[in-house]
């Protein structure tokens, strides 16, 4: 149904924008192993985006590329957290921690979705996200406990990214309509809090005292970053309407 497509679109957009952000690390990481790790994660996440977008596109007779390259900013439904800049490595790690723990919980539940395609996509994706989550956790601990400098950078990363946490858990009308198919984001909050609290405790870090941004990416109201991300991502495709590559 179109509702399922709209739901798949939200999952696809998050993954697409996150992959775009992560891929910028390739050839710029702190060490070669991380060029590979972040690149692998980006590649996995791009794969999830492609699956979700391809599935969503069926409802409107659109391809993954139609959806990725030919929508305008306010047609995108990505969360603000995935739009946030890479910053230094610690910022990227904290963003990964926040998002991959969330995605892991979400995709795990979605493997039981009444929508078989969504369940199948998530069954594959969840195994990969499990690794992303582990990668983020290990680095959070390492940098949280490493040096004074790294701990300070991690605290800073938490401070600048924390405002975008609540948005992930906002229930929409769409979620409620898709009972049995979609997962109510709010239902994941408790488990997410528990896991994040445990990781931060293991890392000598704390939940920062920041406000929460009035973010409404699902409604097409995006952070100021998305316009720049899309300008770069879409520039070539848009110069050649109708082209095959």
């Amino acid at each position: 149904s179109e509702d399922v497509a709209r739901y798949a679109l939200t999952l696809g957009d998050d993954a697409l924008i996150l992959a775009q952000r992560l891929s910028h690390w390739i050839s710029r990481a702190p060490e070669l192993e991380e060029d590979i790790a972040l690149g692998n994660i980006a590649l996995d996440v791009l794969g999830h985006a492609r699956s979700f977008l391809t599935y969503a596109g069926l409802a409107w007779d659109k391809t993954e590329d139609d959806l990725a390259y030919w929508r305008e900013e306010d047609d995108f439904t990505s969360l603000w957290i995935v739009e946030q800049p890479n910053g230094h490595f610690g910022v990227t790690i904290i963003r990964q921690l926040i998002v991959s723990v969330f995605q892991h919980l979400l995709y795990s539940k979605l493997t039981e979705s009444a929508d078989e395609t969504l369940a199948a996509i998530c069954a594959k994706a969840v195994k990969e996200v499990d690794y992303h989550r582990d990668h983020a956790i290990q680095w959070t601990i390492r940098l949280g406990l490493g040096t004074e400098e790294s701990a300070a950078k991690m605290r800073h990363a938490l401070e600048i990214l924390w405002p975008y946490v609540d948005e992930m858990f906002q229930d929409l009308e769409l979620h409620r309509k898709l009972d049995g198919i979609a997962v109510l984001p709010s239902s994941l909050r408790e488990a997410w809090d528990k896991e994040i609290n445990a990781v931060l405790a293991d890392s000598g870090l704390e939940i920062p005292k920041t406000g929460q941004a009035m973010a409404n990416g699902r409604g097409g109201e995006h952070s100021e970053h998305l316009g720049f991300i899309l300008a770069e991502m879409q520039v070539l495709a848009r110069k050649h309407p109708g082209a095959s590559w």
Partner: protein
Amino acid sequence: EQSQARFDALIGKDSRIEPRDWMPDAYRKTLTRQVSQHAHSEIIGMQPEANWITRAPSLKRKSILMAKVQDEAGHGLYLYSAAETLGTDRDELNDQLLTGRAKYSSIFNYPARSWADMGAIGWLVDGAAIANQVPLCRASYGPYGRAMVRVCKEESFHQRQGFEILLSLSRGSEAQKKMAQDAVNRFYEPALMMFGPPDEQSPNSKQSMAWNIKRFSNDELRQRFVGMIAEQVKVLGLTLPDPELRYDEETKQWIHKDLNWDEFMAVIKGNGPVNAQRMERRREAHREGAWVREAAAAYAAKQVQSEVA
């Protein structure tokens, strides 16, 4: 004396030298230089392609390109490992790169200006690399030869992907075809120069051949490569920017235009279009990542301590 004899014997029957085996200093030094340069080339070679990941014109191509650049990082890793078996550690090798004491393939000092360059790099640059590397799978030094087997497998996959990018473009719109031809025009000559100077000007080659590291001369390899791409370019529906190119039935040789070796030397010396940019990107990543590496080391040290305690 005895060691040298044993080494010579192994080389003589085209066997493999392994890390635990005795080897002449010059052999070790030559191999360390060659293997690490190769590793550096993989690492620097990520940059021109990374330049187009965020702008790839379809998600499928973006995905393939990301996987390719990943593979290159992986090749870098195997090759550094192979080099380390010769007794120089990775930090030192990396330091040689960052300080400019070590070289890398000069082709990567040309910018990737358009999407079609992703095709031309795959088809021509990886193609030339394969022509160079396939014989290296039989290199006398075991870890190097084995690394090359793995590398070559993936490279030929990359070359086919590059060919496909160009094919899609050349079958596409006028603008796409023009983009493809322009990329081929820019990469043809630098790719031919990847095999190194003409044989008569390549004094080191002889020793490498005697040691069973190198199996064919620069010109022999260049010949093979030109022959291959001269055929393939027809399938692409594109042309090579070399009106003189022809197969001479008498000499059984491909005749190609004179290559601009002055430019080649200038690029090697650091004066190519993007040498400075490539090196600075590497240095910047190293500089910006210092705190991460330090923290990881500090954390690892604490773990060891707490295990001991």
